[in-house]
């Protein structure tokens, strides 16, 4: 098989090319979004009574809703629904066009249904979101360089803290389930695309439309309430809170659609012979993460809609002096919030185990146990939400049960460690760049995990809750754990996604800057927490000055490390050495198709005969899949004999 991409360059589309919807792109989305937003603003300004309490909130709500709807009409989100309703189903040419045939690079700016284009779009979006979130983190650390700093006003500081949090949460939720569960996962199971290619494109462009409202918060007063937006503080907050809620509601749509799409793809689109027990661990992780997202997102939607109702229509779900309760918010929010951190964590862990297996040249240790552990983490994570509420005074009698469920999570989490070190044990340990990040993950996540058990303990949590210790803990798990594992996955799949090899020399410089900067930043923050510095403060006692200075300097190094990594990625993407189809000699299907991957992934249909971890095995057991329709029968029969 030769590396060809005839579909993208040579295919001639039918005579219908040039219809209105084929002219849709990011530009029309932007234009229509701005237009509808402006119309919404104009109507709201002229019709809604300038009631001091609700007027500006409603205006912002209508404007932002106008933007989101306008952008999605402009980009083409609703095309398929409307065409379905009219009975004009897409024909073959339409589908080829939608998949990006014959459009070159322009297809990255369109509502493109090719899962590889969607994955790449997600990857770029994740870079952008991380850069925005990282920039905001730099603002925070600059403000906290010295005590009594007046670099930022408290209002701006709170706004930055809130949006740093939410921006990073959105980025980390989509950082693996966006790029890799879209680009890699369908190829891994031998599918030609996702189950619902149009919904796939939708899940991406809906996130894109959710970003401007998030950044708009800075221009309408800023969110004062942190990313957790605890009511009633968030109900008290200004119209920025409405922008924030619109972002979340839009994002919920995306995650729900993406989760459904991932699960249905794996359920219905597997290649011949790809039984559940032969699926790569990353596919399992994507499915579990997607399913958990489906569980978490409705609660987020409910919390945000109730909060918008409280703010913009005067209901009283969370306002105590009208009969509501802030504890209701905290419950609904954390019913979403704790599963959500595992929505972030599980897919990168799956990616990490793939990396560990490939670079140790060994099967994933205790494959089934690893799947069980990820499922167990997901299952337990829906029963632990109130550990965020130990000190709120809500139901002190439930402290024991929630301490139990929280500590139980350390058992499946421990199994994931066992699988990782079991895979390393006696492996040939090919230390390429992905593996650097793999080792860093182990170190960071063990610290994040151990500090997590302090926090699960109620008497200790009574000291640590709401303090910098918590901040350091979840940065160790989410940044040091999930994001580092995702980076390992990025370095691993970079040759397949971009067709070029990543420059490992620059990558290693970046690695050391990230590794050292990270430890300095967050170990110092653990110390701040031990000493009793609260979270989310714009200013602090001189008592905490030295460790804050150290933490800030570490954070600058950390950010510089990410920038160097970004440079390595971008420069390798443009000028890097052309990658072979299978640079790591890995066994899963994505490495056994061409690079760049052709439109429908495989020039010959794969037939899976073993799991993709046949390292060190002999004979046919080494082979994950065979291609074409003649050879595999004999091999399969050979295996059976």
């Amino acid at each position, binding site marked *: 098989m030769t590396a060809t991409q005839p579909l993208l360059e040579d295919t001639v589309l039918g005579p219908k090319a040039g219809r209105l919807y084929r002219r849709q792109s990011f530009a029309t989305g932007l234009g229509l979004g701005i237009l509808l937003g402006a119309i919404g603003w104009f109507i709201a300004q002229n019709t809604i009574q300038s009631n001091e309490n609700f007027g500006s909130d409603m205006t912002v709500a209508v404007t932002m809703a106008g933007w989101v709807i306008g952008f999605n009409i402009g980009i083409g989100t609703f095309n398929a629904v409307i065409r379905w309703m009219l009975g004009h189903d897409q024909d073959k040419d339409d589908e080829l066009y939608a998949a990006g045939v014959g459009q070159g690079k322009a297809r990255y700016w369109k509502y493109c249904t090719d899962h590889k284009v969607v994955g790449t779009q997600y990857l770029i979006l994740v870079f952008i979101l991380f850069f925005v979130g990282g920039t905001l983190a730099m603002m925070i650390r600059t403000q906290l360089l010295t005590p*009594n700093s007046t670099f930022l006003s408290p*209002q701006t500081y709170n706004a*930055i803290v809130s949006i740093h949090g939410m921006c990073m949460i959105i980025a980390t939720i989509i950082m693996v389930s966006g790029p890799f569960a879209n680009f890699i996962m369908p190829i891994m199971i031998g599918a030609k695309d996702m189950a619902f290619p149009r919904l796939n494109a939708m899940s991406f462009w809906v996130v894109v439309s959710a970003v401007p409202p998030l950044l708009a918060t800075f221009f309408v007063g800023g969110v004062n309430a942190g990313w957790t937006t605890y009511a009633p503080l968030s109900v008290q*907050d200004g119209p920025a809170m409405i922008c924030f809620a619109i972002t979340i509601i839009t994002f919920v749509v995306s995650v729900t659609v993406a989760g459904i799409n991932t699960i249905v793809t794996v359920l219905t689109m597997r290649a011949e012979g790809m039984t559940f027990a032969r699926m790569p661990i990353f596919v399992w992780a994507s499915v579990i993460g997607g399913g958990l997202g489906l569980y978490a997102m409705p609660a987020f939607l409910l919390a945000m809609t109730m909060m918008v109702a409280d703010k913009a229509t005067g209901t009283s779900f969370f306002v105590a002096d009208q009969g509501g309760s802030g504890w209701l918010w905290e419950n609904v929010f954390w019913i979403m919030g704790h599963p959500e951190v595992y929505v972030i964590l599980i897919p990168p862990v799956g990616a990490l185990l793939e990396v560990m297996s490939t670079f140790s040249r060994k099967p994933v240790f205790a494959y089934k146990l690893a799947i069980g552990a990820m499922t167990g983490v997901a299952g337990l994570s829906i029963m632990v939400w109130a550990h965020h509420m130990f000190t709120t005074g809500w139901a002190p009698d439930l402290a024991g049960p929630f301490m139990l469920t929280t500590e139980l999570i350390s058992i499946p989490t421990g199994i994931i460690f066992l699988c990782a070190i079991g895979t390393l044990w006696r492996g040939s340990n090919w230390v390429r760049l992905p593996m650097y990040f793999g080792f860093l993950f182990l170190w960071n996540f063990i610290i994040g995990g151990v500090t997590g058990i302090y926090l699960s303990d109620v008497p200790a949590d009574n000291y640590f809750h709401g303090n910098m210790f918590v901040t350091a803990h979840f940065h160790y798990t989410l940044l040091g754990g999930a994001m580092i594992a995702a980076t390992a996955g990025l370095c691993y799949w970079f040759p397949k996604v971009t067709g070029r090899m990543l420059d490992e020399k620059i990558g290693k410089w970046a690695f050391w800057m990230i590794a050292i900067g990270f430890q300095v930043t967050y170990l110092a923050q653990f110390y701040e927490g031990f000493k009793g510095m609260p979270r989310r403060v714009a*200013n602090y*006692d001189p008592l905490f000055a030295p460790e804050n200075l150290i933490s800030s300097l570490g954070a600058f190094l950390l*950010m510089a490390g990410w*920038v160097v990594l970004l440079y390595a990625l971008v420069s390798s993407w443009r000028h890097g050495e052309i990658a072979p189809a299978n640079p790591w000699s890995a066994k899963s299907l994505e490495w056994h198709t061409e690079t760049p991957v052709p439109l429908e992934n495989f020039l010959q249909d794969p037939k899976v005969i073993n799991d993709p971890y046949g390292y060190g095995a002999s004979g046919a057991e080494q082979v994950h899949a065979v291609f074409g329709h003649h050879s595999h029968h004999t091999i399969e029969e050979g295996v059976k004999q």
Partner: protein
Amino acid sequence: MRKLIGASGSVLLAALVVGAIGMGFKAQAYESPIGTLKATPVGTDTTCGAAMHHVKLDLSTYPDSSGVDSAGHPVHPSGNPDWPAYGPSNNYSVPTGSCVTMTVTQYDSGGNLNNPYFGTVLGTVGGKIHVVSSGTNISQCGGSDAATEVPATFNGDYKAIPACAIGHTFTMRPLPGVSPGFFLNVPLPLAGNYAGDNVGNTNDFPHQTVTFSFVAGAKGAYSWNCEYPCGHGVASFGAVMGAYGYMSGYLHVV
């Protein structure tokens, strides 16, 4: 070498971008046209008990932030004109260890505090403030506070103002770990019950002149804000109360 230049170049570029964004965020903080209001020295005297350096600060509180004050300074130019504000600045600077006499001219109406505690005068010299009314104000609080006696006009020293007759407060907290620290709570009585627009904010409008002294402690940026619920939303602490610069700021002891 090319790689090294590329990598350091991108770090530099990122630093420039981040720095530019940082400048943007820094510019978001409200700063009054006159900047930080420096206290005027009036020599050495014994206003605060012992003989010490004495400085004066003159402030006003306005029911809206448009217009100019008696000295011609805009009250709070870059904001929401309907919101009340302290003027002419929200940042003040006093020398450490000095005796500070503040005079606040209060033009705003008012009502009930969320917490009556902030009707008490705290932290001033003698635990008192001196109030002079420009004209007749209300004689009684409404509703369940109807029994509370409120003088028709204030004229003299007060250790507390009835919690139902507050216009604003000037409440400042100590810095932990900084000694000597000082805590200050000064209730400013409401000035009349009119609903008119106070654009112009001149002395023609009813007002309360509140004078008090305190000893500035150790160096630092002491955060102050108003504890009277003059905003909107939950507990009337949204909107203006959540926005930096109108009813909050810093007292810099230098």
